[in-house]
């Protein structure tokens, strides 16, 4: 599989420990010296109860005194950046997902997993390996092949008090569950007038792999993006995979966690202490001043690869992994645009109706005045992913295209 470890030479990018993103509202408990208000990487935030409910129904409070980690991007050269804590432990992304899942299952007995081959088989991508032995066949439930029904079952179980995680063996299979995801996950909290909550997590690998054929190589983020009532995040590193898994499980909202087939074997060193990522916040991967590159999931790594070449050529890109595909973190994104005035979106989604399309519209609506050039968007082709290797490669955005786009954008 692609990258076996995350080792970036980010040039002049990181200047020592990154500041923690903190929320500017006075209600928030976290206070760190922020170097900038770029809302950098999303680390912990488990938040105090929202005392002022106003006309909103306040969520139940979940305050935990988690330790905060200043920076855990496992950049090889950055020994200083993991200063505040012990050295952590190295693992692969699928193991990070499993760790997050296991911790949450230990923490709350209502958390359970269901899906095809999650139990005895340990999951097609080994995310649930060993969990059935540890937690039993009912908490890690092997379902028959009936996506629509077992997703609906998860909804019913969530409504009546459990916290299920539905694994789609491949995100594409969840198309069969679209009825339940759109109609029930997304809607029932609303149509019940707020009576029932649906704290489900729907997760699975998507994206283009290595010649897996069209149906196993779908890019479905945009299919779910419009559904009201759903949140959607995409993980891209072991660090954020674990943190987002935990955050998604703890959230009272239905969350879709998009994983990528080719990223499961990414290796990174992550903290030993417990941490949770923020579902709504983007991650500043590399600060810069020439151009804002917005990306997510596997394309983050293509962007970083392109960045090496760009930096050598003297460009200074600011790279943001948007993490939250719905809703967009307009603060992080906006602050970057206000600085660089140019935007390139690099996504794996199709061109038509993709995440990029939605993001472009959002940026135009909110930050039009700050743009010096039209927003560029590199998306995958509107084509069912071909089997042939050459054609498949041409389907998704490759680093040379990113380099070319930046040159075009920045001159």
């Amino acid at each position, binding site marked *: 599989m692609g990258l076996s470890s995350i080792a970036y030479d980010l040039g002049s990018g990181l200047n020592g420990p990154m500041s923690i993103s903190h929320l500017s*509202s006075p209600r928030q408990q976290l206070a760190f010296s922020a170097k900038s208000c770029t809302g950098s990487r999303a680390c912990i935030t488990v938040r105090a109860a929202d005392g002022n409910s106003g006309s909103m129904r306040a969520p139940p409070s979940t305050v935990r005194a988690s330790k905060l980690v200043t920076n855990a991007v496992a950049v090889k050269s950055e020994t200083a950046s993991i200063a505040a804590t012990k050295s952590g432990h190295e693992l692969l992304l699928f193991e990070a997902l499993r760790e997050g899942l296991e911790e949450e299952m230990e923490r709350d007995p209502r958390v359970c997993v269901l899906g095809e081959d999650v139990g005895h088989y340990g999951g097609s991508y080994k995310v649930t390996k060993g969990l059935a032995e540890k937690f039993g066949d*009912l908490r890690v439930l092997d379902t028959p092949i009936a996506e629509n029904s077992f997703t609906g079952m998860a909804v019913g*179980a969530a409504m009546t008090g459990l916290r299920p995680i539905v694994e789609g063996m491949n995100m594409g299979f969840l198309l069969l569950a679209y009825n339940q995801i759109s109609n029930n996950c997304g809607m029932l909290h609303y149509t*019940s007038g707020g009576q029932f909550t649906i*704290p489900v997590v729907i997760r699975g690998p998507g994206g283009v792999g290595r010649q897996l054929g069209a149906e196993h190589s779908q890019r479905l983020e945009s299919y779910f993006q419009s559904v009201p009532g759903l949140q959607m995040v995409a993980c891209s590193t072991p660090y954020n995979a674990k943190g987002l898994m935990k955050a998604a499980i703890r959230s009272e909202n239905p969350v879709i966690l998009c994983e990528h087939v080719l990223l499961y074997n990414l290796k990174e060193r992550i903290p030993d202490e417990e941490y949770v990522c923020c579902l*709504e916040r983007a991650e500043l991967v590399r600060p810069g001043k020439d151009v804002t590159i917005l990306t997510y999931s596997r394309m983050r790594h293509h962007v970083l690869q392109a960045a090496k070449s760009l930096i050598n050529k003297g460009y200074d890109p600011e790279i943001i992994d948007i993490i939250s595909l719905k*809703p967009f973190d*307009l603060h992080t994104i906006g602050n970057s645009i206000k600085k660089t005035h140019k935007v390139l979106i690099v996504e794996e989604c199709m061109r038509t109706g993709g995440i990029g399309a939605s993001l472009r519209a959002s940026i135009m609506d909110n930050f039009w005045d700050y743009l010096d050039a039209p927003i560029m968007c590199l998306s995958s082709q509107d084509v069912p992913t071909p089997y042939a290797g050459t054609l498949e490669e041409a389907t998704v955005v490759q680093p040379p295209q990113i380099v070319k786009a930046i040159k075009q954008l920045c001159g």
Partner: protein
Amino acid sequence: MAYVMRSSPSVQSGSLAPHSSASSVSSSASSSSYILRLGALNSQRSGRLSITRRAIGTANRRTRKPHGVSASTSELVAEKPSIKNALAITREEGLILYEDMVLGRSFEDMCAQMYYRGKMFGFVHLYNGQEAVSTGFVKCLKPEDYVCSTYRDHVHALSKGVPARAVMSELFGKATGICRGQGGSMHMFSKEHGLLGGFAFIGEGIPVATGAAFKTKYEREVLKNDKADAVTVAFFGDGTCNNGQFFECLNMAALWKLPIIFVVENNLWAIGMSHYRATSVPEIWKKGPAFGMPGIHVDGMDVLKVREVALEAVARARRGDGPTLVECETYRFRGHSLADPDELRKPAEKAHYAARDPIIALKKYLLESGLVDETDLRSIDKKIDEIVEDAVEFADASPLPPRSQLLENVFADPKGFGIGPDGKYRCEDPAFTAGTAQV
């Protein structure tokens, strides 16, 4: 003549060998009874063809015949004593059943009035004629049990205990409705009363019900709560029984022995599609044994028969013996919805079922058996009239939802609206929650 027909030898306690915990259907005792059932079914199939031919030709069939159930009829006769006991109800029970059915009928009649007066809108599906099924089942349940319905859900809500005021308000789209006016006729929910919906697409409530039953099992076996024994009843129609979710859930419920009862309200019509034109094997009860659960066929116009079957099925689920499929032969006196001109159903068919009105039938039984007298029933009628009138007045007087309510329940955790350009969560901005912020 109304009677109970059964496919399985019995739903009586103990007569179906419980599954072993290995959850295979192949324990010797149970498999032999299933084989008997399957054998009986196979031999009946050839007999079935002649009936089907008749049906296609003339659409003359108004009642289901007791075809080929002779094998189990003898078993039925053998069990007569217990049936007789189950049919006997007390005066109190009789009054409760009567009141619930009258409430359902009066409420639905009022809905029709209100709809034509422009007080409620959209698609409204009324339950007139089917009251025996709702009352028969729901009045066997405990408050902690769950009911899952479809778009024809007003009466299920009322039977389960949702106040008439709250249902009527919801139908009027008022803020005091059970779902704050956000659900409407097809989306009745009540957490307090264990009503899990209210679903517009057929079949999509069945998995939700299966999940609620799964939760009971999980509570018992994982959370080690011995007292967890909530049973879930899923109501749906004949049209749904050709839908994948039905079969998928029958499989999972039987596989994991979930405490759920699948109740088919077979009223023969899915809008304008006759059940017999849509279904290769019209006997829905037969599909239960195919998945490893008893399949029962009961006269759904007779609340006492329904109740008898319901008590059995609920007891079976509650003690952990697994799911049951119950097909109730019933009929809706009105069209599919208030927008349906109802031109395809033959007057003779409608007249046949009108003569089997469940409320009239129960009334007759109660009076003839001496359990109640006319004044009792009349006072109930009056009481219900007052309840329904009050519900309308309450709904009329209730406020419409304000604009500020629009976005309140999109997310349980409103952080889901995300972080705005200013760095604050959108939900912290009062203009956003009032729906006036530019997003």
